[in-house]
């Protein structure tokens, strides 16, 4: 492996990946791969996660296609950098901020959106001109192996490689020196990644998770309630069965409104996923037995039967858990302390909806907060009093497809961001470049020092042009004299 990695570094140093034409060819190659291999990709996602092919298209393939289009369209503009303004004193000087690739980067992705979370960062890495190693998750093996095949046949193998394997391979990779590590996964592994990166002073982006709450105000219009319930149900159960970093983890709603919301949600679950979701494949599967047991145990608290209001049936053989709703499980129970990452939805009731703000604030910062409300005051309060990677009003998960806003966490949900230009930036170094002329040599920069030079320096640093003029004309009084005398 070390030989392969050092081979990639040599290739990067040849300068090939920096060329705009190379970057464009790779992005186009990726585009072709997505179009030509679409069926295989959708099949692999069905195999690993039981995703319905439309869900798989909507959440992974479609979005990736769009990201590539955005990158191709904007590439030259992103590569051009920008000019930095200079004060007037810097006459005949010029300053620019020039983006350059970091070099050889490592992307470690997760199993729940194996194509999306592997290729979205890769698009950024390529657009920024880097060579990249991708380590997909071994917990989605069909997707992982398809990724390896596709990237090998559509992209430049000298610069882009896929290494497949589990934690051991991960550790081996982390021993190498990278110019950037982009990690999507759990906080526990995130710590390991960052510790390893620290040994080489490698910058990292960590896309972690958290318990993303959905606050639902008591909506007066029935249409609004219907839409809110619909969006919550779709976001929770319709996207990898709740196994997503930005999935709605739990709902907070006023006690009086809870029954209305729950009824509406039940109706939508039936409408969207049918009477028998296990048979008609409208809800994805739990990824493996380990996570299945974990989720089963979450329902294993005293009085669980009392809080269960919908669903609850599980089938270990097919790794299927039905869309489940619980109302007011105890706050100290595991299901309210750990990130759920599955199709179980606790609903926490409060007296007043404003109480949700303190509830959220007293817990670790999540990757996303969702608030369903028309109340502008509540919106403003939620946005300014809570902190999260992002906050979305009246919808959920859609922030993932908006490429003009950064996607990333804060605090326990991670740091760094990507999507759109943010992907390009995250894999670039913004190099400051300043150009000066020989003609503008300010004599007062250099010793031997005189009181006059002292005054001019001070005026210059304060951009006090008039002051400088006064000094030159010998008209400026100064208290510098005392410092001068003491020297």
């Amino acid at each position: 492996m070390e030989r392969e990695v050092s081979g990639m570094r040599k290739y990067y140093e040849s300068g090939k990946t920096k060329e705009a034409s190379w970057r464009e060819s790779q992005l186009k190659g990726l585009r072709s791969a997505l179009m030509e291999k679409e069926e295989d990709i959708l099949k692999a996602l069905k195999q690993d996660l039981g995703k319905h092919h439309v869900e798989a298209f909507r959440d992974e393939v479609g979005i990736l296609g769009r990201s590539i289009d955005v990158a191709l369209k904007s590439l030259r503009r992103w590569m051009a950098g920008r000019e930095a303004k200079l004060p007037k004193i810097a006459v005949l000087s010029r300053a620019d901020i020039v983006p350059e690739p970091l070099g050889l980067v490592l992307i470690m992705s997760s199993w729940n959106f194996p194509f999306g979370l592997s290729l979205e960062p890769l698009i950024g890495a390529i657009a920024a001109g880097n060579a990249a190693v991708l380590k997909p998750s071994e917990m989605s093996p069909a997707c992982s192996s398809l990724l390896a095949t596709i990237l090998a046949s559509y992209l430049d193998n000298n610069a882009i490689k896929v290494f497949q394997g589990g934690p051991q391979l991960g550790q081996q990779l982390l021993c190498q020196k990278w110019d950037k590590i982009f990690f999507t996964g759990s906080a526990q592994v995130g710590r390991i990644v960052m510790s390893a990166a620290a040994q080489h002073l490698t910058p990292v982006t960590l896309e972690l998770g958290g318990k993303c709450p959905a606050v639902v105000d008591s909506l007066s219009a029935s249409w609004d309630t219907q839409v809110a319930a619909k969006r919550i149900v779709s976001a929770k159960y319709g996207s990898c069965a709740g196994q997503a970093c930005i999935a709605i983890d739990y709902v907070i709603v006023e006690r009086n409104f809870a029954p209305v919301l729950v009824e509406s949600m039940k109706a939508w679950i039936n409408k969207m996923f049918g009477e028998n979701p296990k048979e008609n494949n409208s809800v994805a599967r739990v990824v493996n037995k380990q996570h299945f047991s974990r989720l089963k145990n979450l329902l294993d608290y005293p009085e669980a039967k009392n809080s269960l209001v919908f669903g609850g049936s599980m089938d270990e053989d097919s790794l299927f858990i039905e869309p489940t709703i619980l109302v007011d499980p105890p706050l100290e129970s595991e299901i309210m302390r750990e990130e759920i990452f599955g199709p179980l939805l606790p609903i926490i009731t409060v007296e007043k909806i404003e109480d949700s703000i303190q509830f959220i604030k007293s817990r670790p910062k999540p990757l996303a907060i969702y608030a369903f409300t028309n109340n502008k005051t509540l919106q403003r309060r939620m946005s300014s009093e809570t902190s999260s990677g992002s906050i979305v009003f009246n919808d959920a998960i859609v922030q993932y497809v908006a490429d003009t806003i950064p996607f990333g966490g804060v605090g326990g949900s991670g740091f760094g961001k990507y999507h759109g230009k943010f992907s390009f930036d995250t894999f670039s170094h913004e190099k400051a470049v300043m150009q000066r002329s020989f003609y503008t040599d300010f004599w007062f920069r250099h010793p031997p020092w005189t009181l006059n030079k002292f005054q001019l320096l001070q005026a210059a640093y304060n951009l006090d042009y008039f002051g400088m003029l006064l000094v030159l004309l010998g008209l400026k009084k100064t208290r510098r004299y005392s410092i001068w005398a003491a020297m």
Partner: protein
Amino acid sequence: MSSNESKKVFDEGAALLLVDELRGIFASGTTRSYEWRVSQLKALSKLVDDREQQIIEALRSDLCKPPLETVAYEIAMLKNSCRVALKELKHWMKPEKVKTSMTTFPSSAEIVSEPLGVVLIISAWNYPFLLSLDPVIGAIAAGNTVVLKPSEIAPATSSLLAKLLEEYMDNSSIKVVEGAVDETSALLQQKWDKIFYTGNGRVGRIVMAAAAKHLTPVVLELGGKSPVVVDSDINLRVAARRIIAGKWGCNNGQACISPDYILTTKDFAPKLIDALKTELGKFYGENPLESKDLSRIVNMNHFARLRKLLEDDKVAGKIVYGGEKDESKLRIAPTILLDAPRNSLIMKEEIFGPLLPIITVNKLEESFDVINSGTKPLAAYLFTNNKKLREQFVTTVSAGGLVVNDTTVHLATHTLPFGGVGDSGMGSYHGKFSFEAFSHKKAVLYRGFKADASVRYPPYTKTKLRLLKALIGGSILGIIRAIFGWS
């Protein structure tokens, strides 16, 4: 006050209490208001104005820094940073509205900057005032609570900072912890929302590894060997003066962006050396070892380190100017060496002192390979009038920042990001970059209940898939075609 009490040991328990206290203050919202931030920035500016004499004295005590250097580099630059922050703060704090695309239509979005919370700033000894307070300006402007740990290797400045910040600033939100390894370790055990470290790579690794335990993002401002490439067809006098100003005029070479070594052609080297000798004579006189216009070496440790670099037989013989030392006064005269061996210690480690090796090459283009064969430095300099050479320099040399035809001036330009890449660090600051270094950019997305496209939701049909493809693709034509069933 504190000087009369016996010094309490600052251990982990004390550090934990400190962080908890600051978390409480931050949660109360004091530091978030525009008024608070402005009041603190103004207080800092006043502190620098009022106590200029004391600051100069402290730096004279710690480094024998010439008062003019203190005024020009530490005081004037700090005041400039305050001025820029005060002028721009309202603009920086405003949410940035961004466009949204068809994929989330209808929606509106903005990016809101929010403070991270409780931040730790660890600074260095060479510009102890500037490197402590410049990041503090950014942290305050962004609305955080701050703990500053100044370097114990500059003790007069450290204790002055503790005294002055206590006197002028809001003590409940801005604290100074003085001390050495023990105190720093106690601080690093705690959970911070950001750590900003200026110093060397060895400690940088320790800081990042400690941060990894809490998933704390870091900015590391480190160093490296900043090279100067000198072409022949230039204004030699101006170039020599600028090299001298950047090297010996900056704390006698003890600066992270000081020219570390020079690369020039074999033919041109003698001319360059002559020019340097001439200008050095003008700047510092016949006896530079005694010159008041040069800082001394900070302590015996570093003096011994620098002496060791010259002790190598193969190196000592290459001295062409200077070389005088005075251990009792911790002084080393400006020293130039010609063609010290590439594998000698002086060519492998960052010098951080008044020794300037000149390495000669046959063709100037070879110097870029020499530079790229080492780790990425914090800065790289080129003196040339040759446009092609200049372009080659900008595209092939990777460093934190580049300057053509001058040295170190990019530090004073607040519209350029100041930071490293690779071994020279990660993250950047100055001007708006300081504000952003201590902020979280939260994505805010607003959606309404009215328009709700059913294509996103299950149950999934062929029609929905067609429409989804068109919708994600974002073209109006595509959407129309999909609606009419033509795609």
